[in-house]
C-alpha cells in the first residue's frame, strides 16, 4: 500500500535501529503519549529492535482509558432513560463503569448505538425527532474539532433533540503533571502526531523549555516511531532539549487553524478529572454557555456520584508510565479484556490491552 508500506519497510526500520544503537552511550527512559503509538510499538515489537539502554514507557494518551469512571456512569445512567438514544464510539461500550458497562446496558434494553463519526449521531437525531440523542464525546484534541462542527451543525439545523456528553482532555497539561511529579523518570517524549496535526507544536515548546526535556512529534508507523526515538536519543546525547518534528508529512508548528477555530467557538477549557491520574487543572474542554442547549450535563441534570476504582487496578501507575502493564499482579490472570479491572485493559489503545493482545507470551513464559 503506497505511503504505508514504505513506513513498515524492515530494511528502513533496522537501519534506524542501528543508528540508534551507534549513538546511544547511556540509559534513557522515553515515553510516547498517544495510545495509537503505544499500539504500534507493541504490535510491531519495536522494543525488540532497540538497544537495551532505551526503555520505553507508555503515556496517558488513550482517550477511553482516561475518561473518568463518573462520566462512564453518567453515560450508562443516560442510556437507561427510555427516551434516550446513547451514541458512542465502539471502544467506549466495553469500559467498565462502577457497576456495569454500556454493552450490558444495551443487553438490558438500553438504546445504545456505535458510530464511526459524530455526524452519524446527528443523522440519527434528524431521523428520530421523538428520541433524545446523546453523543458520548470523548477524546483528545483530535476528536474535539469534529465534535465542535457537529454541534455547530446541530445548532444550524435546530436539532434540539441532539446533545453532547462531552469529556474531552488536552495533552499538554497532562505532560506537565507527569513532569512535575517527584516520581517522574521520563527523559524524553514522543509528542502525539495526530494531536499536533490539529494543534501544532507551540504548546510543547514551553514544556521542553520549562523542564529541559526534549520532545519529538512522531507519527504512527514503525519507521516514524523509530525515527522519533532516534531524534530523541540524539538530542539527549547532545544535551539538547528542543521540540523537533518527525511527522513532517502531517504536522506543522501552527497546526490546523480552521479546526482550532471550531474548537474555540464551541468549547472552553476547564478542569478535568483523568481516570488513573486525578484532577488536572485546565486539562479538559466543555461546551460554552452559548451551546448549553446541546450539553447533556445541562439538559439531564446529571448528578456527580463519588465512585471508587477497583483497588487492585494499577492503572494510575500504568497511565503515568511508572509501571509496565506486565508488572501488575492481576495482568493476564484476574484482569483480561473479557473481564477488565480497569480501562487500559479494555481499549485497543490501552497499554494493558496492547501487552495482553500482542506480548502475553513473554510474560507467561517468564512467570
Amino acid at each position, binding site marked *: 500500500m503506497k505511503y504505508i508500506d514504505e513506513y513498515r519497510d524492515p530494511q528502513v526500520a533496522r537501519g534506524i535501529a542501528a543508528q540508534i544503537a551507534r549513538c546511544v552511550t547511556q540509559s534513557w527512559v522515553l515515553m510516547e503519549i498517544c495510545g495509537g503509538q503505544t499500539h504500534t510499538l507493541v504490535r510491531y515489537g*519495536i522494543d525488540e529492535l532497540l538497544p537495551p539502554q532505551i526503555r520505553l514507557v507508555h503515556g496517558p494518551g488513550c482517550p477511553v482509558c482516561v475518561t473518568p469512571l463518573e462520566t462512564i456512569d453518567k453515560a450508562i445512567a443516560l442510556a437507561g432513560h427510555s427516551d434516550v438514544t446513547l451514541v458512542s464510539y465502539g471502544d467506549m461500550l466495553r469500559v467498565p463503569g462502577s457497576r456495569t458497562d454500556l*454493552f450490558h446496558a444495551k443487553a438490558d434494553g438500553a438504546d445504545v448505538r456505535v458510530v*464511526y463519526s459524530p455526524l452519524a449521531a446527528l443523522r440519527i437525531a434528524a431521523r428520530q425527532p421523538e428520541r433524545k440523542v446523546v453523543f458520548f464525546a470523548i477524546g483528545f484534541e483530535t476528536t474535539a474539532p469534529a465534535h465542535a462542527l457537529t454541534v455547530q451543525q446541530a445548532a444550524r439545523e435546530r436539532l434540539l433533540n441532539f446533545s453532547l456528553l462531552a469529556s474531552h482532555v488536552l495533552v499538554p497539561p497532562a505532560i506537565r503533571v507527569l513532569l512535575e511529579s517527584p516520581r517522574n523518570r521520563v527523559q524524553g517524549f514522543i509528542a502525539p502526531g495526530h494531536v499536533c496535526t490539529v494543534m501544532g507544536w507551540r504548546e510543547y515548546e514551553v514544556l521542553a523549555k520549562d523542564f529541559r526535556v526534549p520532545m519529538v512529534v512522531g507519527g504512527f508507523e514503525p519507521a516514524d516511531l523509530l525515527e522519533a526515538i532516534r531524534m530523541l536519543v540524539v538530542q539527549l546525547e547532545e544535551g539538547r532539549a528542543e521540540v523537533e518534528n518527525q511527522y513532517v508529512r502531517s504536522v506543522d508548528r501552527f497546526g490546523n487553524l480552521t479546526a482550532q477555530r471550531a474548537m474555540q467557538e464551541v468549547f472552553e477549557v476547564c478542569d478535568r478529572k483523568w481516570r488513573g491520574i486525578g484532577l488536572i487543572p485546565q486539562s479538559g474542554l466543555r461546551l460554552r454557555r452559548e451551546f448549553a442547549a446541546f450539553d447533556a450535563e445541562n439538559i439531564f441534570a446529571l448528578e456527580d456520584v463519588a465512585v471508587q476504582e477497583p483497588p487492585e487496578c494499577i492503572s494510575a501507575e500504568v497511565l503515568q508510565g511508572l509501571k509496565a502493564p506486565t508488572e501488575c499482579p492481576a495482568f493476564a490472570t484476574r484482569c483480561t479484556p473479557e473481564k477488565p479491572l480497569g480501562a487500559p485493559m479494555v*481499549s485497543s489503545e490501552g497499554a494493558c490491552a496492547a501487552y495482553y493482545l500482542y506480548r502475553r507470551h513473554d510474560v507467561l513464559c517468564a512467570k
Partner: protein
Amino acid sequence: MSKRTDTIELSCPVPLPAREKILLGHGSGGRLTAELIRDIFLPAFRNPALERLDDQAIVNISGLRLAVTTDSFVVNPLFFPGGDIGSLAVHGTVNDLAMGGAQPLYLSAAFILEEGLSMETLRRVVDSLRRAAADAGIEVVTGDTKVVEKGKGDGLFINTTGIGVVPHGVSLSSDQARPDDAILLSGPLGDHGIAILAQREGLEFESEIRSDSAPLHRMVAALLAEAPAVRCMRDPTRGGLSSALNEIAAQSGVGLELDECVIPVSEAVKSACELLGLDPHYVANEGKLVAIVAPEAAEKALAALRSHPLGQEAQIIGRVTASHKGLVVLRTVLGTTRIVDMLSGDQLPRIC
C-alpha cells in the same frame, strides 16, 4: 519485567461480575462464543462427536461415516456485493461439511420471516439459494417456515443443516496438528467481512470489495486427492483467521507460528482496514480455508490448492511448533514477534 515495585498497596480483588446476560459479543465467534460453548452447551450435550468441536460432527452409521452440520444466517444487509443471504446459507453449510473432508449431499432450509417482508425479497433470496445449491451439486430436501411479528426479526433469517459422506480413509480433526506441520491459507483474507461492512455503513472505496462467498468442497476434494496427509481444515468465517488458528492451537495442544509477510490480503481490503482501524486477521471470510498439512506433503498441497480457481493465491503462511502451546505467534514484517490472539468480542474500531 520482574523488577521490584514500590508504593503500590495491594488488596483483595473486587469480585468480577458474572455474565448474567447474553451480549452481542457472544455471537462474534471469539472468546465469548467459546465461553458459551464451554460453559453452557458442551456440559448439557456432552458426547464424543460434539466434543471434537470441529465445524461438523462425524457420526458412524453402520460403517458409513456421515458429516452433519448446521448454521444460522442473520446477515444484514440481505444483499451485498458478491452474494446474498441465500447463497451464503448454502456456502456456509457446504463449507462446514467440506472442512471435515465430507462430500456434501443434502441440505435443509428453515426460514424465519418477519411480518411485512416483501414477497419480491423472499423470491430473490430463495432463487439465489436454489442456484447456489445447484452449483454446489447439493439438494434441498426439507425445510420449515416461521413468521415472527414485525420488529422481532431482521427481515429474514435462514438456518441450513447439511449432511455429507466422509470418504473412506479421510479423517480430519482440529486436534491433529503436529509440530513442524505446514499451515496453508487458500487466498487473501477479509473480503467478505469488509464487503458486508461497506454495504451496511454506506462506505465507498475506489474499487468495490466483493464477498468471497463460495463453496469449497471441490477444492477440498482436489486437495485431499493430491495430499492425503492433511491433518485438519477450518474455514475462517466469523472471528477470521485468528479464531480458526487459535482453536486449532488449543485443541491440538501446539503452538502456531505465522509469517506476516506472506499472509495474503488484497490491497483494497488492506486500505479499508487501515481506514477503519480493523485487523484483517479478524475479519470474516466465506470462501477460504486454512489447512494444517504434514511437512512432507506441504508443497504438493499448495500446488493442489493453486491449481483450483478458488485457491490461486494460496500460500504457506507458517508452521506448527512444540513451543508456546495454545498460542498463535506472528513474525511481523519487521522480524519481531507478537501474539495473534482470539478476539474477546466483536472487533471495535479505534477512536483515533
